[in-house]
């Protein structure tokens, strides 16, 4: 089982090696394999949304970063609002601090990533746990339609913001998932665990601005 570390500007210095590995893994996947973005000479993938507003979840197993993702409040510029707003024709682009955009999900393929209780499910469980702890009400973003069943399989409520659309032969969809106690319970039941997967070291900043928290 992975441990999922919450990385923000305040504690990033504790994760120099892991964060660098994360950027290189992103480059392997999103540039070399998927060709979403141009090659970067230093072999690290960074985009305009990697700002201090981002929170990263790094899934670590036996000292290796085996999975990761990035969360950004949707009231700030994010991938869907800036690049893919046309994917939200039916329900509109979400812009709420308590809705987080979940992007740059990566799973190391050699880690039995996609099994029912595999690394991806573990990451999903950790995202739900983090979102719940931080008082968020939804997480989501643009994803390949192919992977959508992962969330449904966990018994989560998935809300598409518009129709799937084709980009270079692959179909993508913008969808958000309700953050609830029940969703966390279900993910944990699938994994057969009842403990937290999150690790918080060093300075942590709340995801929601303090005045918005209940």
């Amino acid at each position, binding site marked *: 089982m992975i441990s999922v570390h919450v990385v923000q500007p305040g504690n990033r210095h504790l994760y120099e090696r892991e964060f660098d590995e994360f950027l290189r893994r992103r480059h392997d996947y999103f540039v070399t394999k998927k060709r979403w973005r141009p090659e970067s000479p230093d072999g690290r993938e960074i985009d305009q949304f990697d700002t201090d507003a981002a929170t990263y979840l790094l899934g670590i197993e036996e000292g290796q970063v085996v999975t990761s993702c990035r969360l950004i409040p949707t009231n700030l510029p994010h991938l869907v609002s800036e690049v893919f707003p046309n994917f939200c024709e039916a329900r509109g682009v979400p812009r709420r601090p308590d809705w987080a955009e979940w992007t740059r999900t990566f799973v190391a393929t050699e880690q039995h990533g996609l099994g029912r209780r595999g690394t991806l499910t573990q990451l999903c469980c950790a995202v739900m746990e983090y979102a719940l702890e931080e008082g968020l009400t939804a997480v989501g973003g643009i994803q390949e339609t192919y992977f959508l*069943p992962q969330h449904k399989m966990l018994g989560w409520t998935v809300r598409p913001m518009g129709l799937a659309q084709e980009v270079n032969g692959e*179909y993508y969809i913008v969808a958000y998932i309700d953050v609830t106690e029940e969703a966390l319970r279900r993910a944990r039941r699938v994994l057969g665990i009842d403990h937290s997967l999150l690790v918080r070291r060093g300075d942590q900043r709340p995801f929601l601005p303090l005045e918005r928290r209940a």
Partner: protein
Amino acid sequence: MIDADVFAFLERCDTYTSAGPLLDDLLQMAGNFGFNHLILSGVPMGGQRLDPMVELMGWPADWFERYCERTYATVDGVCIYSGQTTRPFYWHDVPERLAGTEGSRRVANEATEFGIRSGFAVPFLSLNHWQSVVSFASPSKDCKMSDREKAQLVTMATMAGAAVEALVYQDEYRPNLLTDREREVLLWAGSGKTHSEIGKILGIAEVTVKKHVTSAKEKLNVATTVQAVIQAARLRLIHP
């Protein structure tokens, strides 16, 4: 079809508590695009049997029977390609190396007897099979959709597929599916040991080893020992 109909369908998907009514609903929606049959199934790999992997069976019954009986899944280019791509595709776009074989041509020809002449397939991630697919069949020689219609159908197929798999497997967390002995035998089989070698290692008779392997295959719903090892690893019952 207008998008509102698509979103109304997506909402209905979550309300079904069994697969049958969902199949009828999806069939009716697909009818708007000229499709009159569909199947939703895990994609059989390497000689696996198709019938235990089918979640929604909306084919003509006698065609399905013949397809399974003659193990057409092993030669049908559409079926094989469904396990090789993650992208939705028209059947007529299946690469020639798969669609052009004698076996695949025969399957396509025989399907026309049942009014199945063309189609469109939507593969999606499965946590229980290698991957799953919804395949829509049309009686017209060359089914066509606009980009908008394709987007609507892909959206509905994926969400319906996800809903069905969630229904079937929601409470299927079964860490005790296999006995300790069955897991042990599969682990050794996975490292390349024969039945007789495994018997010697564990100090049990070869026939007992075979009994454990057969029982594991039945529980995992697979045909061969290799498939049993893979499936057990996917379910994280063993860690080879």
